[in-house]
C-alpha cells in the first residue's frame, strides 16, 4: 500500500488540547502541511510545541477540532487508522543518547519500524536498514556496530535512518539538533534538507515538521513557520515573510532576542 502522496499531508482545524481537569494548553490551532514545504513550529517553554507534536504523532487526540492526515481524519481510537498513520509520519527526538537502545546493534535498531509496522522482515529489512543508513551518510558497516560507538551527530543520523526506513511522508523532528555541537547541528539540518529534495528508492521526498526554539535552524530549513505563544498561534506563513516582516510583537521579540554574530565588538 503506497498511495499517491496528496499535496496536503497534514491539516489541523481549530485544534485545542487540555489535559484532564487541566487548563487548555493548545487553542484553535490551524495549519496545513503541504508536500515539499517544510514547516517550522517555533516557540518557547510552555508554548505547547511538544503537545502539538504528540497530537500530530497520534499519541493523543485533540480535545477540540480535528486533524487530518493524507486527506483522512485522524482518529486514534481506530487502530487500523492509527497503524496507517504510523507509516505516514515518523518522529525524531532531541536526545540521540537516550532514544537508541544501547544493547541492540544499529542495523536492528534501524530496521525496527519495518518489523513493527509489518512492512518488511528478514533479509529485506536488513537491506533496507543498510540503505537507510547509507542515505543518512553513515558507512556500510554501521549496521554491525552499537550506538555507543558513535558520536552525538552520528547517533542522530541513526535516529533519522530509523525514522525514514519505512518511507514515511512526514518526518516530525522535535528539537533534533539542540543537543548537538554547533558544527554538527548544521550538518544534520543539511541532511534533513537533502532528504526533503532527494527521492529515495523512487519514494516521494520527505516533508519535515521541525519543532525548534532555534530561529536560525528554522530559517535554514523551513519554508513555512508557525509561531506559538502559550498555546496559541500568534503568527504563521512563509518563513521569509515572517522573519523579515514579523507582524506580531512576540515574533519581533523572539527575533530581537537571537544573539547575532554581528554583535562582536
Amino acid at each position, binding site marked *: 500500500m503506497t498511495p499517491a502522496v496528496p499535496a496536503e499531508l497534514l491539516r489541523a482545524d481549530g485544534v485545542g488540547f487540555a489535559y484532564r481537569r487541566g487548563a487548555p494548553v493548545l487553542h484553535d490551532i490551524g495549519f496545513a502541511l503541504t508536500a515539499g514545504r517544510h514547516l517550522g513550529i517555533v516557540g*518557547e*517553554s510552555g508554548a505547547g510545541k511538544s503537545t502539538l507534536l504528540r497530537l500530530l504523532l497520534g499519541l493523543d487526540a485533540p480535545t477540540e477540532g480535528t486533524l487530518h492526515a493524507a486527506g483522512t481524519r485522524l482518529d486514534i481510537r481506530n487502530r487500523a487508522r492509527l497503524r496507517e498513520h504510523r507509516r505516514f509520519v515518523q518522529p525524531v527526538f532531541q536526545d540521540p543518547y537516550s532514544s537508541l537502545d544501547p544493547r541492540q546493534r544499529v542495523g536492528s535498531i534501524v530496521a525496527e519500524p519495518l518489523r513493527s509496522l509489518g512492512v518488511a522482515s528478514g533479509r529485506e529489512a536488513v537491506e533496507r536498514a543498510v540503505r537507510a543508513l547509507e542515505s543518512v551518510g553513515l558507512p556500510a558497516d554501521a549496521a554491525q556496530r552499537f550506538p555507543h560507538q558513535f558520536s*552525538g551527530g552520528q547517533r542522530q543520523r541513526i535516529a533519522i535512518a530509523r525514522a525514514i526506513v519505512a518511507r514515511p511522508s512526514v518526518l516530525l523532528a522535535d528539537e533534533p539538533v539542540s543537543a548537538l*555541537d*554547533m*558544527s*554538527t*547541528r*548544521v550538518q544534520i539540518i543539511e541532511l534533513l534538507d537533502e532528504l526533503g529534495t532527494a527521492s529515495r528508492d523512487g519514494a516521494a521526498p520527505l516533508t519535515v515538521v521541525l519543532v525548534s*526554539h*532555534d*530561529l*536560525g*535552524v528554522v*530559517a*535554514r*530549513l*523551513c*519554508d513555512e513557520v508557525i509561531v506559538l505563544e502559550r498555546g496559541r498561534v500568534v503568527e504563521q506563513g*512563509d*518563513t*521569509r*515573510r*515572517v*522573519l*523579515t*516582516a514579523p507582524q506580531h510583537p512576540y515574533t519581533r*521579540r*523572539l*527575533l*530581537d*532576542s*537571537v*544573539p*547575532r*554574530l*554581528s*554583535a*562582536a*565588538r
Partner: protein
Amino acid sequence: MSEQERPVLEVRGLTISTQDGRGLVHDLSFRLDAGERLALIGESGSGKSLTSLAIMGLLPDGVVAGGSVRLGMTQLIGASERTLNRVRGRAAGIVFQEPLSALDPLAPLGRQLAEPIARQAKREGRRLSRAETRAAVSAALAEVALRDPERIARAFPHEVSGGQRQRVAIAMALAGKPELLIADEPTTALDVTVQAEVLELLDRVTAERGTAVLFVSHDLAVVARIASRALVLRGGRVVESGDVASLIERPAHDYTRRLVGAARELDDALGSGGAR
C-alpha cells in the same frame, strides 16, 4: 608589579588529566586583567568546562590538574581545601548552565543567598542583624532585576522559572564581591528571550562592578554578545585566540573556520529571513 598590572587570573601551563594519565587539557596559558572579558569557546570534549572547574578547584574525583593557576595572589594548583574555600566566592564566583545544580532544593532562595551575603559582611567586619540581612537579600535580588524580590526570597528553587533561578545564581556568585565571575554556558538551558535578558543582566552587573568575566560557551553568537577576547579550544588545546570580532571576521585555523562557518550559516539564514 603594581596593583594595576596584577592580573585577576593567570593560568600558565595548565594541564588536566585523568589519574591514569590520559590528557584532557594540555599546556593551557592565558591571563585575564581586571574588568576584562575572555571567552573559552569549544564544543564537547574541548576541555572548556574542565578548565573553568579547575580554576575553582572543583575538578571531579579522578581528574588532576598541574601547572599554575593564580587567582589574585593565590596559587590554586595544589592548594588545600581550606585555601580553596577561602577563594571560592570571594576571589571568583561561578555560574553554571543549570542553576539547580548550585542551589539547595530544600531551602528558600532568600536563605541561600543570605549565606554568602553574611560571609561577605563578616569579612568586611560587620555583623548583620536579621532585618539587615533580609534587606541585603532583597537588594541583591533587585540588582539582578528580579521583580518582587520578597516573593522570590521566600520561594524554593522549583517554584521559580529557569531564568529567575539563573538570576538568583548570579546574585549568589556576585555576593562575595569577586573580581572574577566564571560563567559556564549560563544561558544554554534558557529560552531565547530569557537568554537575551540574562546576557543583558550579566553584561550590566559585571560592567557596573568592574568584574572580570571568564565566559565558557559553545555558541559564537552568544560569545560575541558578551566577550571581547576568546580562546578557541579543541581536544584540550588552544587552536586560536584573539579578539572576538577578528576571530569571526578572519578565522585563521581550520577548526575556527568550521565553527564560524556553521554559526554563519544559521546567522545568514536568519538575516535574509530564510535561506530557501
